[in-house]
């Protein structure tokens, strides 16, 4: 919302308030001022000038050389290419060493060899029009010469730009902001009641209004003006409109826009001669009903919208835009002003449905005050008379089917003080509320009708607090019951996982939770897999972000792809992320977490496996089994394992299948793992119990056996550990050898086995039988031979 500060002077005295102070105080009382701009501030050394003589440029067809009187001793020479200059034209001249909006500096120079001592300006060059102008701005003939252009064009205006929150539609108006200014600076305000000069006729002889759906239109006020003379509006009105960002059209349309700015009440003017039956009907639109709006666009309406119609056809989308069929034109002689209150939600639906948000709809959809309709329309009629634009017909059509009662609340100063943590006296509260036009009497607060946002004690408390000053509220610490805060075991587990993986040399990543549905296929997830059952976004930013992920693999692979494409020689990353699984018969999907790891560079299967083993140990999960898995298309058939703790599935690990790598443009070996965080949480045991340090020495024996290449070392360990009764403390694989010495299809596997007893020092007699049993079992079960 733009507010030309000079406009405030219509209602109050703002003398002595500096821009900076205005910005600060208004912001601190709740009306956020984003800035105060002055269109003239950047314009320097630009004056009015008169073209005395125009000659052809000797070397350029499209240029002319002008002699211009700029009010100095001698005229100056300016070269221009503008097509609309003529001798005698009064124009803005940016002289040598002048500046224009946007920091543009003008100095003398040569154009095709002819000296030019400045530039004639167009409206866009002066910053008074956004559009690119086709020629130089031609000023009225009687404009004095050599005058500062900012003064001549009244550009020297401070315009404050407000950010108005959605609960304060009343502040989307000059009067509303004047009220806030008056309350903030504690200065008196006077808003004159419009005085309408009307003829002795009766408006009911001219038109009638019928509201068919009172729930959609609580009030409709209409007035008629006859003998209308369509003309441009006066300069002062055009200037104010322009300061607020509205283009001047003609006196009638400008008045409706002026009222919208001043009162925050959107208005419309119909050419009454084009209203069939001279009757206005407010009703729901019919599905498929057609209307060409003022912007010459054909519109198809829907029953959720409110339409204004005459006896035969729609003539406007209520609260959004009028129809072309009843538009005020140059030959219009009788108009009907509309000042109505339409249902906020219905206007919003209409504007949204038609894809046309207008200034009017933006106001209506926040909810307006019905009480404002009458003063607004009277002010419009007052201006019609003042501008000599027509003769106001006597009387008002005022259909007011739904009158909202004034909000009356209990005045509870003690409660408010307790709520705010303050100690403001009752009298001070009353004074501040009265500044905001709230009336306090007999223990009640009478809320002004334009403050529909005030519904209870908390709202009144906010009014008091913001006028008093939020900065004057003390800072205290909460009292009351002690509350034990902290993290849940599951939250702590997540921290542990994160810290462990980071310590293992992985970087945590955070990726979008929505993916492209094609990504699962790229990641090798087979067709028909349940992970293709997605939660879909109906209005995604694009197909690539259109479904919630059901698996973390592609998120990690995409990150590796980014890093690889940027020639990072290695990358090792992890994410603890949520996956989303739709559940039959439930509105919300299951949200569970996965830990996904991915890496390329100096890594192999055993490196990532070691990272996971260390992770499992950190969360107290011991004895996980890695079962070879050759049937998961995401992974290399010979380098993949599913991870189990007893029968519980924990996750999958392996080298990413070359085909999957290729689809993610990764021409390198990639290793990845996806761990089910929920399973991990179920199995995790963060308790720790001290075991006494051993009192007796350990005995270590190394054994090396030859087995078939296909034998997994995991089987060997199992057999060794099974024979150990309770004296095998540890069993470490320290060598695997394949080569001619052990024969083809064979390998030698060497273990270092540590024996220890808690009761005594072990001897050969204790250990040898166990070693014998181990070797015997290995031979029987795996055909292992001692080397």
């Amino acid at each position, binding site marked *: 919302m733009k507010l030309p500060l000079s406009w405030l002077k219509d209602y109050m005295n703002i003398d002595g308030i500096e821009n900076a102070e205005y910005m600060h105080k208004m912001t*601190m009382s709740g009306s956020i001022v984003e800035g105060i701009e002055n269109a003239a501030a950047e314009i320097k050394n630009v004056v009015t000038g008169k073209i005395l003589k125009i000659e052809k440029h000797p070397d350029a067809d499209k240029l002319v050389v002008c002699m211009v009187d700029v009010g100095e001793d001698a005229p100056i020479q300016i070269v221009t290419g503008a097509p609309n200059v003529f001798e005698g034209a009064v124009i803005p001249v940016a002289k040598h060493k002048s500046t224009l909006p946007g920091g543009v500096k003008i100095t003398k120079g040569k154009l095709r060899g002819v000296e030019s001592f400045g530039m004639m300006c167009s409206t866009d060059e002066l910053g008074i029009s956004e559009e690119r102008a086709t020629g130089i701005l031609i000023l009225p003939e009687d404009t004095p010469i050599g005058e500062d252009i900012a003064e001549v064009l009244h550009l020297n205006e401070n315009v404050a730009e407000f950010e108005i929150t959605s609960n304060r539609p009343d502040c989307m108006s000059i009067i509303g902001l004047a009220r806030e200014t008056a309350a903030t600076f504690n200065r008196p305000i006077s808003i004159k009641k419009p005085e309408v000069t009307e003829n002795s006729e009766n408006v009911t002889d001219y038109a009638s209004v019928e509201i068919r759906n009172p729930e959609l239109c609580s009030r409709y006020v209409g007035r008629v003006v006859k003998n209308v003379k369509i003309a441009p509006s006066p300069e002062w009105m055009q200037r104010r409109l322009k300061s607020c960002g509205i283009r001047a059209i003609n006196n009638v349309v400008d008045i409706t826009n002026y009222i919208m700015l001043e009162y925050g009440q959107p208005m419309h003017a119909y050419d009454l001669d084009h209203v069939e039956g001279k009757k206005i009907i407010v009703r729901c639109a019919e599905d498929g009903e057609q209307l060409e709006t003022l912007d010459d666009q054909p519109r198809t309406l829907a029953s959720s919208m409110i339409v204004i119609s005459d006896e035969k056809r729609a003539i406007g989308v209520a609260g959004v835009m009028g129809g072309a069929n009843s538009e005020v034109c140059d030959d219009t002689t009788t108009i009907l002003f509309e000042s109505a209150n339409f249902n906020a939600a219905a206007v919003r639906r209409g504007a949204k449905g038609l894809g046309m948000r207008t200034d009017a709809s933006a106001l209506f959809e926040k909810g307006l005050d019905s009480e404002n309709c009458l003063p607004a329309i009277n002010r419009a009629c007052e201006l019609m008379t003042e501008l000599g634009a027509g003769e106001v017909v006597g009387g008002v059509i005022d259909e007011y089917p739904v009158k909202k009662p004034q909000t009356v609340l209990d005045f509870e100063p003690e409660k408010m003080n307790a709520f705010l943590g*303050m100690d403001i006296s009752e009298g001070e509260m009353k004074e501040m509320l009265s500044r905001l036009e709230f009336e306090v009497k007999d223990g009640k607060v009478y809320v002004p009708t334009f403050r529909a946002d005030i519904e209870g004690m908390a709202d009144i408390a906010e009014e008091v607090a913001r006028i008093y000053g939020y900065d004057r509220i003390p800072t205290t610490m909460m009292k009351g019951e002690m509350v034990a805060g902290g993290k849940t075991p599951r939250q702590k587990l997540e*921290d542990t996982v994160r810290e462990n993986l980071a310590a*293992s040399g992985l970087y945590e990543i955070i990726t979008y939770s929505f993916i492209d549905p094609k990504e699962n296929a790229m990641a090798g997830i087979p067709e028909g897999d349940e992970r293709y059952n997605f939660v879909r*976004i109906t209005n995604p930013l694009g197909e690539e972000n259109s479904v919630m992920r059901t698996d973390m693999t592609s998120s990690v692979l995409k990150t590796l792809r980014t*890093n690889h494409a940027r020639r990072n020689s290695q990358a090792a990353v992890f994410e603890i992320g949520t996956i989303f699984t739709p559940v039959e018969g439930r509105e919300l999907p299951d949200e569970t977490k996965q830990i996904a790891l991915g890496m390329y560079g100096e890594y192999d299967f055993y490196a990532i496996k070691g990272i996971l083993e260390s992770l499992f140990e950190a969360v107290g999960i011991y004895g996980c089994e890695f079962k070879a898995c050759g049937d998961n298309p995401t992974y290399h058939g010979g380098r993949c394992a599913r991870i189990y703790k007893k029968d519980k599935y924990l996750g999958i690990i392996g080298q990413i299948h070359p085909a999957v790598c290729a689809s993610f443009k990764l021409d390198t070996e990639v290793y990845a793992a996806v761990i089910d965080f929920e399973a991990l949480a179920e199995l995790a045991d963060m308790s720790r119990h001290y075991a006494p340090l051993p009192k007796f020495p350990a005995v270590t024996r190394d054994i090396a056996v030859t087995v078939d290449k296909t034998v997994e070392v995991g089987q060997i360990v199992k057999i060794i550990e099974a024979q150990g009764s309770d004296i095998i403390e540890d069993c470490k694989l320290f060598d695997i050898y394949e080569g001619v010495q052990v024969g083809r299809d064979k390998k030698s596997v060497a273990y270092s086995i540590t024996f220890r007893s808690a009761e005594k020092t072990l001897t050969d007699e204790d250990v040898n039988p166990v070693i014998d049993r181990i070797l015997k079992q290995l031979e029987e079960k795996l055909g292992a031979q001692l080397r």
Partner: protein
Amino acid sequence: MKEKLAEIKAKAEEALSAAKTAEALEELRIKFLGKKGELTAVMKGMGALSPEERPRVGQLANEVRDFISKELDEQKSKLLAAAEKQKIKDETIDVTIPGTRPKKGGKHPLTRVLDDLKDIFIGMGFSIAEGPEVELDYYNFEALNIPKDHPARDTQDTFYINDNVVLRTQTSPVQVRTMEAQKPPIRIISPGRVYRSDAVDATHSPVFHQVEGLVIDKGITMADLKGTLEMFAKKLYGEDTRLRFRPHHFPFTEPSAEVDISCFNCGGKGCRICKGEGWIEILGCGMVHPKVLKNCGIDPDVYSGFAFGIGLERVTQFRYDVTDMRLYYENDVRFLDQF
């Protein structure tokens, strides 16, 4: 015999001082003190001496032996010290060669800052509450006093799954769920991902993180809200930090405020980071709207409370000087390595 002993002593002294190696010293030990050594031979021959002479010569012999032993030891430690010195010299390395580092990993910058925020609030007795990201419209909007057709619900802001289900646009639904499930006193923060339908650029991301807080108890005041947030800001940005509460509007709080902190870079004088204003907006907050309390089955006449919401990306941006939000979600390891 005395002469003999003196001769041995002189010889030994000379030989010992000339010995350069541990082996040579050992040879000399054997030569003089060994079973067949020169001194031993003299001592063996003492039997031939008269009883009067024997003790004197014996004493002299002992002195010579002690002298040689002592010299031997001294010479030995000298040699050892020299050898050790030489060894150290030989083992000298170039200390300017870079160290061998363990592989470096680390938490995401957003996680690091979130951990700090959690610590601060846990220190004030807060718990951490979590909730679904795919959320019912009711929890995301309606229960928070944002009915259907409210301007804050424009489709351009919200991702919809269907008419009743959205991707949460804020973590406030977690507050509602907490209030429904738990009776006051409540002190929670709800950090998490939120979604808005914004195209990606340096300052917008369709996925970002919020940390919202909620306190409900008897007698909670707006002054408590100010005190709590002031403590938070001082812990996060330093003791000198000042706060500025500006009136604002949120549908779920009343009164509502936006909070600026004095610029941590310039202290309020105005600089590049605060765009010359001296203040930086960091969060929105307010007293929980009575309607919201009622919606959650909490009697607003008995209880009151406050809520606040912090944008994690924004706080992180100020912590680490990250100027482009896209960096958080691209996960380039060269970026992640910097924290």
